[in-house]
């Protein structure tokens, strides 16, 4: 209850500050807020929100998985991109419906292996995970950029993008919404994570490790093994998200298309804000997605400078982080 109130208060405070900013630039704050809400949840906006929420929630969950054990995966971007490019590479080779499955699997596998490699860098080579995941991310992104410019480039265009996947390797679309069946794949991943986290010994051991590495070691949890497995799960899900994105419109890998929307960083934000709790992570991801598509709607409707939208979003996140901090702090002090 108190959590709800504090959060609501934070949103309200941010909105107030936003209103002042908007008014200062001559826009009508009420119109602006209405367009944000309608843009995020209205009949036209909701599909946009969900379309953005799918990769964000997927990445948020992917990054939450190791975070539960106190392990931070900063390499989500590389895993996402490798998953996507692998999915396209396989999808272009394997024809028919089998291609969908093969492409998705390839995405999962690529992401999982790459993340597991980062984990091995820590467990076997002594490079801290934070560093190994982050550093490995860049070459992966560069590799994909190279592939779509040279060996895998779309011969029909001069753009850094792959060929389009054949129609039978497209994920089934959901009506006219711009959404694909990828929505269900990501949802399923979230549910599996929630169940594993709360109800299985493996999830329990991950949480134990998050509580304290020395306690985990004492309890017989093999930390290197756990690290590798959790990172593999994390990277696998990130790879799946990449695959899901490229198996949807425009059905190809475009260089930068997975980086500029900041799926990974917004996802990490959501996971951290929710302390990696499965449901909280999902909710935070949805919230950020709504904020983003609402922001675009605001710009379209009112031509408010986009800088202002970015400022509004940042202010809201700052207030929210402070509010959750207060909540956690209070719980800690109790």
């Amino acid at each position: 209850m108190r959590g709800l109130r504090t959060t609501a208060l934070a949103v309200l405070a941010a909105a107030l500050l936003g209103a002042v900013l908007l008014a200062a630039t001559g826009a009508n704050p009420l119109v602006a807020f209405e367009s944000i809400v309608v843009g995020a949840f209205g009949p036209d906006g909701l599909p946009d929100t969900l379309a953005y929420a799918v990769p964000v929630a997927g990445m948020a969950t992917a990054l939450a998985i190791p975070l539960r054990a106190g392990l931070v995966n900063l390499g989500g971007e590389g895993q996402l991109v490798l998953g996507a490019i692998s999915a396209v590479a396989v999808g272009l080779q394997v024809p028919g419906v089998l291609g969908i499955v093969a492409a998705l699997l390839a995405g999962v596998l690529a992401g999982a292996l790459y993340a597991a490699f980062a984990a091995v860098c820590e467990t076997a080579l002594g490079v801290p995970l934070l560093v190994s995941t982050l550093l490995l991310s860049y070459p992966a992104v560069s590799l994909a950029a190279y592939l779509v410019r040279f060996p895998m480039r779309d011969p029909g265009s001069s753009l850094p993008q792959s060929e389009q996947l054949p129609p039978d390797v497209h994920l089934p679309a959901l009506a006219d919404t711009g959404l694909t069946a990828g929505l269900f794949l990501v949802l399923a991943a979230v549910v599996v994570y929630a169940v594993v986290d709360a109800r299985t010994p493996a999830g329990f051991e991950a949480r134990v490790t998050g509580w304290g590495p020395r306690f985990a070691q004492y309890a017989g949890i093999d930390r290197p093994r756990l690290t590798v497995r959790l990172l593999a799960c994390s990277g696998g899900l990130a790879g799946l998200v990449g695959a899901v994105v490229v198996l949807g419109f425009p059905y190809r890998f475009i260089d930068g298309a997975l980086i500029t929307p900041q799926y990974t960083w917004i996802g990490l934000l959501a996971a951290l804000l929710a302390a990696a709790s499965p449901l909280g992570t999902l909710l935070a991801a949805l919230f950020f997605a709504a904020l983003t598509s609402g922001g675009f709607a605001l710009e379209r409707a009112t031509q408010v400078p986009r800088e202002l939208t970015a400022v509004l979003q940042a202010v809201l996140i700052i207030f929210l982080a402070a509010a959750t901090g207060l909540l956690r702090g209070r719980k800690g002090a109790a």
Partner: protein
Amino acid sequence: MMDAALFASALGALTPILFAALAGALCQRAGVFNISLEGTMLVGCFAGVAGSWYGGSVWVGVLAAALAGTAYSLVLAVGTITFRGDAVVLGVAVNLLAVGLTSFLVQTVFGTRGTFSDPALAGLDPLTVPGLSEVPFLGEVLSGHSALVYLSWLAVPVLAVFLGRHPWGLRLRGVGERPEAAASLGVPVDRYRYGAILAAGALCGLAGAQLALGNVTLFSENMTAGRGWIAVVAVLLGRALPYGVLAAAVLFGLAEAAGFRLQGLGLPQQATDAAPYVVTLVALFVFSARRTVKRST
């Protein structure tokens, strides 16, 4: 393969990264994982240019950059310390805010979109170090940088001495290592963390000043272009030790400069983009492998 001028330009280019990385190291030692370096640096860039333009002197700009960085880092300080928000979440938001805010300010303050530059904008002049500038190769590499470049070099030993030998530095490290123990000895944990974050803000401001008034003389939206993130990597690589951070930044700067050179020899740009990271990772492997060998014998 690399001439002196190139080394010199690499040194100048890594200065913003070095300043920001020192800032990050300071916070790290106080127990705050500061990833708002990028945004704070950007605010420093803007304030530096605005200060220099309206103050009429580049030093007004440098001062404005440091002050603006300090003031801006209050957001992170209040959020993480007073409100106990998550430092990473707040850091990301602070970065986001900086991009929006500075782009917005360019429009309102300078009345142009995106970029402000003017031939009359005063930038940092290169300093000729007497004596050193005559030394053949070294002189060309080490002399002729802006005052902030030399300040950043000076900042490394200063920070090392501060952390290792100044009472405040000792207390700061304790605060980072075990806050409740520090508190039980009467050391005001929150105040030290505020101090670290604000000082880091000033350093990031200087990083911005060097970038916008030293490396180039202009402001352009989002011109930090990921340097703050490289600084975060350098903090992690250098284990938040001043000299470690310096080594990481130099390694990075040289790998990048070498990458540019290799691009000229026909390596694809994507490979040279990745080069600094790969080089760093390999260096880490070698380093940690050597340590493991040493430990096992």
